[in-house]
C-alpha cells in the first residue's frame, strides 16, 4: 500500500469514526448483533424466500392466463412485508430488551453513562433500521408488481410512510412490554400477549393498506385526512407514553420519572384541542360529534394516567429535591413534579383543560341539524360530565387511600387497585341492585353513579332541563368535596416544592458559584 492511500484511509476512517461518535452507541451495537444473530438472519431470508415464491407463482399462473394482476400481486407482497415489519421487527425489539436481563448484561448497561431514554430510543432506532432493511429488500419485488400496473404512486408512498410509523409504534410498545416484568414466567405471559396484539396489528394494518391501495379516491376526501390526523395523534401519544414508561422502569428509583409522562399528557391534550379546532375549520356540523368521540376516549385515558400520578409517593426524592427549579414560582412547577399531591393538582388542571378545550372548539356553532346528533351544548355538557366523573372517582377514594402514604411499591399498587375497584363497584353494584329489583336491562344502567348515565343526561335532548341542572349541581358538589378532601395534600405538595427551591437558593448563596467536577479526567492505566 502506498503512503498516500494509507493516509487517505486513515482520514476516511477518522471521519467515519467522528461521524459514528454522534450515533447512539446502542444503535450500532444492536444492529451489529441483530445482523449477526440467528433470529434476524432466519426471519429475513424466510420472508425474502416467501416473496420470491409469490412472484414465481404469479409468473407461472400468468404464463397460462397472459397478464399479471399488479394490484393483487402488490397486495400479497405488501402483506409479507407487513408481517416482517409490523410483527417480526417488534418481536425482535422485545427480545433485545429482555435479553439484557436474561443474559445478565443489564446492570453493566445502566451503570454506563447512557441515560435510560437513550437506551430505549437506541433500541427503537435499531428496530427502525431493521424495518428499513426489509423495505429495501422488498423494493425490487414491489417494483416488479408496480410495473405490472394498477397502482398509483401516491398510494404507495402513503402506505410506505404509514407502515414505517406503525412499525416504530409497534416496536416501542414491544419495548415497553419487555420492561414490565423481570421474572421468566411473566415474560412468557407478556410475550403471548404481545404476540396476540402484534397479530391483530398486522391484520389491521394489512387490511388498511389493502383498502388504501385499492381505493385511491380516499385521498381526496377530507374525512380521510381528519381520520389520519386523529390516528397519528393517538399513535404518537401512545408511542411517547410507551417510551416514557419503559424509560421510567429502567431509571434509578431516585430519578424523576413522572415529569416526562406529565409533559407528554399535556402535549397530547393540547394536540387534541388543536386538532379539534382544525376539525372545526373543515366541518362545522360534525365538530360536536368529533368532540364527543374525543371526550369519550380522552377522559378514560386521562383517568388511567391520573390513577398513576395521584398515587406516587408523596414526598420528593432527594434527587428531585436537589433539581427543583429555583427561578420559576413553585405553584407553576409543582404540578409537573412527581408526587401524589402534585398529581392531584396536575390531573385536575388537565381535566379542566380538556373540557374547556372542547367547550372552546364547539362554542358558537349552530345547533345540530339532525335530532339525535349532539349539538355544541350537548358536546360541552358531555365533556364536563366525563371530566367531573373522572375527577370524583379519582379524588374521593384517592384522598382516603393517600393516608397509607404510599410507602412502598406494594402500597402504591394497592392504592391504585382501590381507586379502580371503587370505580368498578360504583358502576356495577347499583346496576346489579336495579337489575335484581326488576328494572329492565337498559334502565338498570341508568343510575347517577355511572358516567354512562351522566353522558346520557347531557347528550339526549329529550332530558328535562331541571334534571340536567340537578346533575350539574351534584357533580360540581362532589368535585368540590374531592378537591377539599385533597386540599391538605395539595398544599403540602406545593409547600414542599417551595421549601426545596428555597433550600437550593440558600445553598447556592452559601457556596458561592460552585462548579461541577469535570465529567471525565484523562484515563490513567
Amino acid at each position, binding site marked *: 500500500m502506498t503512503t498516500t492511500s494509507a493516509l487517505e484511509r486513515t482520514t476516511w476512517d477518522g471521519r467515519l469514526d467522528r461521524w459514528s461518535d454522534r450515533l447512539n452507541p446502542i444503535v450500532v451495537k444492536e444492529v451489529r448483533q441483530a445482523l449477526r444473530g440467528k433470529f434476524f438472519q432466519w426471519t429475513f431470508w424466510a420472508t425474502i424466500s416467501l416473496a420470491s415464491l409469490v412472484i414465481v407463482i404469479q409468473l407461472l399462473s400468468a404464463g397460462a392466463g397472459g397478464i399479471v394482476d399488479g394490484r393483487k400481486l402488490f397486495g400479497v407482497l405488501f402483506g409479507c412485508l407487513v408481517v416482517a415489519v409490523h410483527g417480526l421487527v417488534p418481536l425482535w425489539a422485545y427480545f433485545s430488551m429482555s435479553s439484557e436481563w436474561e*443474559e*445478565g448484561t443489564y446492570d*453493566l448497561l445502566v*451503570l454506563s453513562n*447512557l441515560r435510560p431514554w437513550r437506551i430505549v430510543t437506541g433500541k427503537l432506532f435499531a428496530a427502525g433500521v431493521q424495518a428499513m432493511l426489509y423495505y429495501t429488500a422488498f423494493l425490487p419485488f414491489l417494483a416488479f408488481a408496480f410495473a405490472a400496473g394498477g397502482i398509483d404512486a401516491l398510494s404507495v408512498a402513503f402506505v410506505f410512510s404509514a407502515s414505517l410509523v406503525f412499525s416504530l409504534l409497534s416496536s416501542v410498545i414491544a419495548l415497553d412490554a419487555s420492561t414490565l416484568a423481570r421474572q421468566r414466567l411473566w415474560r412468557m405471559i407478556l410475550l403471548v400477549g404481545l404476540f396476540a396484539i402484534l397479530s391483530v396489528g398486522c391484520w389491521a394494518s394489512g387490511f388498511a393498506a389493502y383498502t388504501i391501495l385499492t381505493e385511491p379516491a380516499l385521498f381526496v376526501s377530507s374525512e380521510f385526512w381528519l381520520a389520519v390526523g386523529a390516528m397519528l395523534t393517538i399513535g404518537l401519544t401512545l408511542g411517547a407514553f410507551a417510551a416514557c414508561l419503559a424509560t421510567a422502569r429502567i431509571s*434509578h428509583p*431516585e430519578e424523576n420519572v413522572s415529569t416526562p409522562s406529565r409533559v407528554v399528557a399535556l402535549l397530547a391534550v393540547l394536540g387534541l384541542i388543536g386538532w379539534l379546532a382544525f376539525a372545526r375549520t373543515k366541518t362545522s356540523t360534525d365538530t360536536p360529534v368529533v368532540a364527543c368521540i374525543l371526550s369519550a376516549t380522552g377522559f378514560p385515558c386521562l383517568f388511567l394516567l391520573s390513577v398513576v400520578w395521584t398515587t406516587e409517593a408523596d414526598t420528593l426524592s*432527594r434527587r428531585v429535591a436537589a433539581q427543583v427549579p429555583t427561578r420559576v414560582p413553585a405553584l407553576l412547577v409543582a404540578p409537573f413534579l412527581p408526587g401524589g399531591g402534585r398529581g392531584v393538582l396536575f390531573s385536575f388542571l388537565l381535566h379542566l383543560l380538556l373540557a374547556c378545550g372542547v367547550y372552546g372548539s364547539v362554542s358558537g356553532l349552530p345547533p345540530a341539524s339532525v335530532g339525535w346528533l349532539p349539538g355544541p351544548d350537548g358536546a360541552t355538557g358531555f365533556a364536563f360530565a366525563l371530566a367531573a366523573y373522572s375527577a370524583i372517582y379519582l379524588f374521593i377514594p384517592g384522598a382516603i387511600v393517600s393516608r397509607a402514604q404510599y410507602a412502598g411499591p406494594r402500597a402504591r399498587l394497592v392504592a391504585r387497585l382501590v381507586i379502580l375497584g371503587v370505580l368498578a363497584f360504583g358502576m356495577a353494584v347499583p346496576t346489579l341492585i336495579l337489575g335484581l329489583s326488576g328494572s329492565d336491562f337498559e334502565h338498570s344502567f341508568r343510575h347517577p353513579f355511572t358516567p354512562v348515565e351522566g353522558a346520557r343526561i347531557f347528550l339526549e335532548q329529550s332530558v328535562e332541563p331541571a334534571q340536567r341542572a340537578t346533575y350539574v349541581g351534584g357533580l360540581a358538589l362532589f368535585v368540590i368535596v374531592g378537591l377539599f378532601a385533597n386540599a391538605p395534600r395539595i398544599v403540602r405538595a406545593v409547600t414542599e416544592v417551595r421549601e426545596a427551591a428555597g433550600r437550593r437558593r440558600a445553598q447556592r448563596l452559601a457556596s458561592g458559584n460552585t462548579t461541577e467536577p469535570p465529567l471525565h*479526567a484523562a*484515563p490513567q492505566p
Partner: protein
Amino acid sequence: MVSPYALEVRGLTKRFGSFVAVNGVSFQVRPGEIVGFIGPNGAGKTTTMRMCATLEMPDEGDVLIEGRSALEDPRAARRRIGFMPDSYGVYPSTTIREYLDFFARAYGLRGETRGRTVGEVIEFTKLDGLEEKLVSVLSKGMKQRLCLAKTLLHDPSVLILDEPAAGLDPRGRVELRELVKALGQLGKAVLVSSHILTELAEMCTSVVIIERGELRATGSVDEVTRRSRKRAAVFVRFLSADAPQIERALLECPGVTSVRPERGGFLFDCSGSQEELAVILQRLVDSDLRPVEFAAREANLEELFLSLTEGKVQ
C-alpha cells in the same frame, strides 16, 4: 466540602420484605486504599456493594462518593464508580474490541480518546492479541479480565469488585492481585470482596468484616487482629495419632479454651503469655503424645475471619 474519603458508607440498611440483609453498615475507603470486604456466604457483601454501585436502593443510610451522596446524584456517582459484579453476562456475537468500544462510547469517550483508552485498558489487563476473539467463547479468567477492562474504561476513582478472583486458576489470581495492587498505586479506592482470604491479605491495606448483615470489624489487618484476638493461637503437631486423647490433653492445659485440628496437627488458643506457653509445652513433652512441632502462630486473615464470624449461613 472536600471529603478525605473516596467512598463512604453511612448506616446502610437493606431489607428484603421482613428480612434484613444489611443492617446499619458503615465504613470508609480512602483514595489509594485497597479494602478487603469479607464475610461468609449470605453475609450481605453483594447487597452492600450493589447499593454502593447505585444498583440497589438502600432502605436507610447513604453512600458518599468523593463526598457527594450517590442517592442525591446517582448519575454523578455512576461516573466515578467502576463496578464489577460477581455474575454478569456479555453480548453474544461481539468481539473483545467491539465490546470495549461499545462501553467506551456508552461512557461518552469520543474520537481518538476512545481508541486510545480501549488500547490502554486492553494492554493493562493483558488482553492484547485477543481483540478479535468473540466474548461469548472466552474462558472464565479472560472474561473476568475483560470485565475489569470494561470497569476501567471511564477511569473511575472508586472500584467495587465483587469476587473478582472467583473461578480463576492460581496464575490468574496472582495476575489479578497484581492488577488490583497497581490500581491502588494509581490512587484508586478499591473495595474488593473475596472468599480467598490469603489472596486478600496480600493485597489489602485494610479489611471490613461483615456477618449476617452486620459489621463485625474494620481497620487494617493487624489492627483488627489485635483488637479482635487478645489471645494467641499455637500450632502443635504430634507423632501420636490419637486425636481424642490429644484434644483432651490440650484442653486440660492451663488457659487453653479451644482446640481444632489443622493440617496434620492442632491449633489451640491460649492467653499467649510466655509463662503459660512454657507450662503447656512442658506438659506436652511430659505426656506420651510426643510433640514434634510447637509454634505460636502469626495472626492471619483466615483465623481472624473464623474467630470473628460464627459461620452461620443465613
